[in-house]
């Protein structure tokens, strides 16, 4: 894995990395990839996906409001750094 790839990934992950961190991740990555490549040994042609390993199935519910959770707006907004009225405020997008 070269540095450029790690930097590219860090941009996708929206995480700023120092040059030392990039080096360390480079090393760890190589080990991890070696390890992960073991899965290539297995023949998986015609094997289906399992997104939820626990055999759960998709469920639906009525589109009704959960009365218990109605008045959470105030407390949810409390944790934000910047708000205006009922809105979360973000820094300038560009």
């Amino acid at each position, binding site marked *: 894995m070269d540095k450029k790839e*790690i930097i590219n*990934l*860090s941009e*996708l*992950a*929206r*995480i*700023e*990395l*120092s040059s030392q*961190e990039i080096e*360390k*991740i480079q090393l*760890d*990555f190589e*080990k*991890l990839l070696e*390890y*992960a*490549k*073991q*899965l*290539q*040994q*297995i023949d*998986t042609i015609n*094997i*289906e*996906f*399992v*997104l*939820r*390993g*626990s*055999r*759960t199935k998709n*469920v639906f*519910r009525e589109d009704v409001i*959960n009365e218990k*959770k109605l008045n*959470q707006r105030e*407390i*949810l907004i*409390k*944790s*934000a*750094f*910047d708000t205006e009225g009922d809105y*979360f405020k*973000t*820094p*300038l*997008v*560009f």
Partner: protein
Amino acid sequence: MIKKLHQKLISKEITAKELAEGCLEKIEKQDKEIKAFISLNEKDLILEQAKTVDEKINKGEEINLLEGIPFAVKDNILALGTRTTAGSKMLENYESSFEATIVEKLKKQGAILIGKTNLDEFGMGSSTENSAFFTTKNPVDLERVAGGSSGGSAAAVKSGMVPFAIGSDTGGSVRQPASFCGVVGFKPSYGTVSRYGLIALASSMDTICPLVNSVEDAEIVFKAIQGKDFMDATSQTLCEKDNSKLNIKNLRIGLPKEYFEKELDKEVKECIEEAIEKIKSQGIEVKEVNLPMAPYVLPCYHIIMSAEASANLARLDGIRYGRDKDLRIENLQDLYFKNRGKNLGPEVKKRIIFGVYVLSSGNYDAYYKKALQVRKLIIEDFDKVFKQVDFLLTPTTPFSAFKIGEKVNNSLAMSFSDLLTVGANLSGIPAISLPCAVKQNALPIGLQLMGSYLSDYSLLNLAKFIQQIIN
């Protein structure tokens, strides 16, 4: 222990106030050293809850099994009136905005929340050395780790600070610390306990679990927290049907050959083999079985867990919570990059980036899709074996508690402690770790039992029986 405490309360041998004070005193005495707790609830609040229980008892009213029983909760689970840090600088000051369903359920039963316990940051790690705050020490040997990521909860129970604690297990994070500390750690079938209020690591594997002193206690806590929840679409209620009764004569226990071929520490091997002999001498059928997918469970787990974690931790945007007030930022991108760069720990960053890698186009097929297919084969592996035997027995971890600092710089080596536990997470099956009898002054060693999906009550009955035999 819980039943005993309950008896003492209703017979007025002790008061709930004395019980709570006793826990707080133990914490005050020992936690400076052990560091199991990140935060404690206000003493006044705790004692007031205890007072309510005592008043009920004095009036002659009936109380629940868990009423007046103090407990702790891993700090990745939200409880009103507490901070929930997830062991991270990012959420150091985050005040829980709602209550996790399991905390609500336990409080409704009258259990008393004492505090939040230490963990590896966002559940990523096997020793609590990845906590942004401090490392929890193993009460059995203070130079060694308590295990992780639920190390704080395991240590709190082992040292007698609380009769029970709640942890979360995504790849072994409850069973491994249970094994390292010498307590019981039970991972229920995926979906039987609501995850509402648990900060997600890998949503298809995260399971909320009890850490306790006995299998009986595990069952008591499990009964109190399990059940379908409107707020968690993956949850379901498990009925304790008649088939939870154990038929010793027809019991078949399987020893997966591949789990014993691995590099097990000599002490672990000897301890488990001794336990197996004790079980055989009871006339129980114990036979070797095969789990051919065993060598692939850990790499499969790494890929799926990292992918899901990268998606789940994308919510740490610094906008709704977790904003570092000391950062000078110019725009939104700046906020994301700098806030996450500064306040997420190295292991977390690495796993997120690995997750992004395996999900990116060009790599998706070779890694993530491949891992999902392998997962299907792993599930089939377990399904096949449960047609030949009723339960599986393995060591919980290949080695006992390592020294603090020993593996902290080699996260791949550290993750090998999960070698024997991740299979149950990938396949959703229930698993429990029991402390095995060890020589005096030896480190605790865990014996793991696994059952088929949704066989939780049967597994607990088996574990009660085995617990008696091996100790």
